[in-house]
């Protein structure tokens, strides 16, 4: 087959013709070239056919699955909770570490055997204990028949 000068331009115009109207000069070149070059004529037919099939295979309407909206909203809520947890987790971890540190310090301080002996007061101390005025309840002192 004889290749005619301008095939590249023809191919470009064949593609552009799908999107815009060619100028009269371009259209004239296109038609003249198409009538002279059999290869380009075939190219144009095939290109058209391929694009027609592609357009025909497009989905124009899609069936929606039920509850799509609800699922998105539910996921959005979960996402918000996760994000807020992620936001606050460093602060929570810090607070927990601080709490542990405070408890550990308090536990150490409150142990008397860990304190220095020199810091303990000397002598002995006793608490005044007043005998209770109320009678004590002793089971053994009760008569047998009451028990």
């Amino acid at each position, binding site marked *: 087959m004889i290749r005619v000068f301008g095939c590249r331009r023809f191919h470009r115009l064949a593609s552009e013709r799908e999107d815009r109207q060619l100028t009269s000069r371009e259209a004239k070149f296109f038609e003249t070239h198409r009538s002279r070059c059999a290869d380009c004529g075939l*190219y144009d037919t095939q290109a058209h056919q*391929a694009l027609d099939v592609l357009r025909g295979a497009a989905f124009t309407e899609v069936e929606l699955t039920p509850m799509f909206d609800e699922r998105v909203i539910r996921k959005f809520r979960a996402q918000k909770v996760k994000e807020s947890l992620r936001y606050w987790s460093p602060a929570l971890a810090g607070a927990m570490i601080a709490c542990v540190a405070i408890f550990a310090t308090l536990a150490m301080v409150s142990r008397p055997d860990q304190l220095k002996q020199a810091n303990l007061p000397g002598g002995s101390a006793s608490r005044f204990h007043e005998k209770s005025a109320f009678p004590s309840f002793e089971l053994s002192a009760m008569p047998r028949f009451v028990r």
Partner: protein
Amino acid sequence: MIDARFISGVVADPVAQERQWVSRCRQGDEIALGYLIDRHRSRLIRTATNLLRDRHEAEDVAQESFLKAFREIAKLRDDRAFSGYLYRICVRLCMDRLRLKRAELVEFDSAQPHEGGKVENRVVIEKLLAQLPAELRTTLVLREMEQLSYEEVAEVMRVPIGTVRSRLHTARERFRKLWIEAVGE
């Protein structure tokens, strides 16, 4: 501030209406969230289906797009831009999936020319599109199936119009060759 006319349902302009819903959504209103999903889901799922050729995957992508858009809605400067913003996210997510899919590309058996039924055509188209790189495939689908203009494709893909033009030319040429191989002409 929410327009009183809007609450009473008098606002007819869909752009103004959407702006109001977006601003309500930014404040965490779930009714607004539902409205925006309802308004955009069909288009989003349809585009994702055309790009990915898989309805279930398309729904996943649409869902992911909504979640991403709502998460970042505070960053959106212009409420009117929400629709384009959402669409862009969806196309980007589809492109990411296409790039991953391309690694596990299925070879097309060109030795058996197909008959040309509508369902069969869809299957063939799916296999042919799978052989195009993600950028070319997306450009071709947005232009030929979604009927977007050059400007819209350029905006969605964040590339200059010249790039869209050259990509489209290359994509059409490659698709034509693949199609000829497939039909065995």
